[in-house]
């Protein structure tokens, strides 16, 4: 289930953290989710590459303080738009599920 939302999670983490390298993105996800997501860390990197190929992220290589080469990712405008859309869909979905499971009626939104 988590894998289906991985793209949104990565986009949201980058939106919150600003331009960041893979490790920082993973730390941001861990921190914001309270460590709830237990994905192999390596799974994030193919997602970052895929999102970059789709034009939702851009990346550039920098040199870290350690002297190692580091790839830093940032949201593109298209990525930002995609995140806004996905957030809206997610809110609608979670309100509907919340209504079903929790018993509260979700607020009706115009179609």
């Amino acid at each position, binding site marked *: 289930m988590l*894998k289906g939302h*991985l*793209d949104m999670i990565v986009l949201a983490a980058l939106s919150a953290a600003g331009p960041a*390298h*893979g*490790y920082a993105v*993973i730390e941001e996800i861990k921190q914001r989710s309270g460590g709830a997501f237990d994905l*192999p*860390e*390596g*799974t994030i*990197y*193919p*997602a970052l*590459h*895929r999102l970059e*190929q*789709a034009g939702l992220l851009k990346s550039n290589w920098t040199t*870290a303080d*350690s002297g*190692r*080469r*580091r*790839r830093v990712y940032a949201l593109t405008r298209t990525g930002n738009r995609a995140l806004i859309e996905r957030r809206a869909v997610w809110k609608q979905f979670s309100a509907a599920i919340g209504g079903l499971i929790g018993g509260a009626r979700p607020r009706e939104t115009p179609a």
Partner: protein
Amino acid sequence: MIADYLDRLSHQLSFDRSLAQDVRQEVEDHLWEAVAADPAADKLAAQQRAIANFGDARAIAAQFAVISLARCSRRAGVAAVLVIAAVFIAMKARIAWYAATQWAISDGLRAVSALVVRIDRYAFWLSVIVGFGSLAYIISRKIPAAFDPEYNSQLRRFLFLCRASAAALVVSVISDGVLTIIQLAGTELPVGFWVPMASMAIEIACAGVLVFHIRGVALRAASTAALLNSCVGH
């Protein structure tokens, strides 16, 4: 220990050297940062933990392989369109040269030539339509997260379109070759006779490039499927 893991990962990604190099550097940075952030004094154990948290090299490589395959197929779609455009330019240049040199076909071969021209025209425009269609199809698909049955069937459709376009282009190039032979036959070769020969060589090379790209996608798809199967087996 980290170096061994990176070697394994690079080896699994050896089908795409630039990707393997980029991924290696990115993962190396990640693993050493994870080791540095590990509070344990035993750095060897920290390396082990960093690698275990990162995941199986083969499984990670399989995910990258799917992305690489998507990139490879998009490149083949672009190559199809560029190759068709190059063949068109070579064809038009040859015809313009025939007109400029007033190099006419001998009367006895006019009927055959008209038939070949018709085949050439239909084959070329079929290749244009299907070639552009294959590019439009592949760039309108989402880059997959996994080599699932849906992506597999998308790839099959794309390869079918590419092969159809390439087959039509090969027919067109063969027709052009026949027309060039007809044009050259029975006439005295003018000084610049190498112009149609060179344009034919360009057309043949272009068709070869397209076939090479399509074969590359098919081979990459097979190696990606094999890598994924080996992950399932482990």
